[in-house]
């Protein structure tokens, strides 16, 4: 299982703070994970559409599309940050 965490606007749009998911065998990196979530449709496809600014962290480190995602990882999805 992979722990998905949704933060800030994404949590509001998806209507949940996170979930545990079993990833299909062909989902091995961040890019594939986003494509898989997008295929759910609705807010998933609009919020995660290519071109939308979505940031991803794997195990609390900033990740890129080619960052691997493995069983046991914590993957957070969030909009660009606005602190300070």
């Amino acid at each position, binding site marked *: 299982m992979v722990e998905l965490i949704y933060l800030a606007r994404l949590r509001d749009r998806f209507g949940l703070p996170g979930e545990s998911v079993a990833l299909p065998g062909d989902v091995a990196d961040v890019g594939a994970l986003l494509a898989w979530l997008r295929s759910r449709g609705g807010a998933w496809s609009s919020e995660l559409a290519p071109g939308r600014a979505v940031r991803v962290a794997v195990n609390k480190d900033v990740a890129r599309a080619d960052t691997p995602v493995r069983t046991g990882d914590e993957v957070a999805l969030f909009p*660009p940050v606005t*602190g*300070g």
Partner: protein
Amino acid sequence: MVVRVQTEDFDVAREIALLRGSDARVGAVASFIGIVRDQNDAATVRTLTLEHYPGMTEKALVGIVDEARRRWSIIDAAVIHRVGKLAPTDQIVLVAVSSAHRGDAFAACEFIIDFLKTQAPFWKKEVTPDGERWVEARTSDDEAAARW
């Protein structure tokens, strides 16, 4: 190094005194204090709620201070960021840096706040007379961080 995320307010004088301690090498302290404004993007801000990603936030802030240490000759640094519900005039963030000479303290302080604004996982939600809205990231903040 002090890196703290907290709901309660902070006392700038106290934090700077702690940062300096009794270290006689310190010849300069530069600080930045971020404060909640009552106007943002042409709307009146009534309250602001700040959330963060516990665990990643602290890690990101420590990483930013470490990078500042690599780039400038600084003695110590403190970063304190508030979360939860805030109102106009409330303090949000303190960055304070000590060094032997002012140039390093000024530069490192500005670097830390510029990177905090673009890399540390905090998000602001505003309550305006028209309702709630998530604050959008600013291109000017990315540009400020890219200067370094």
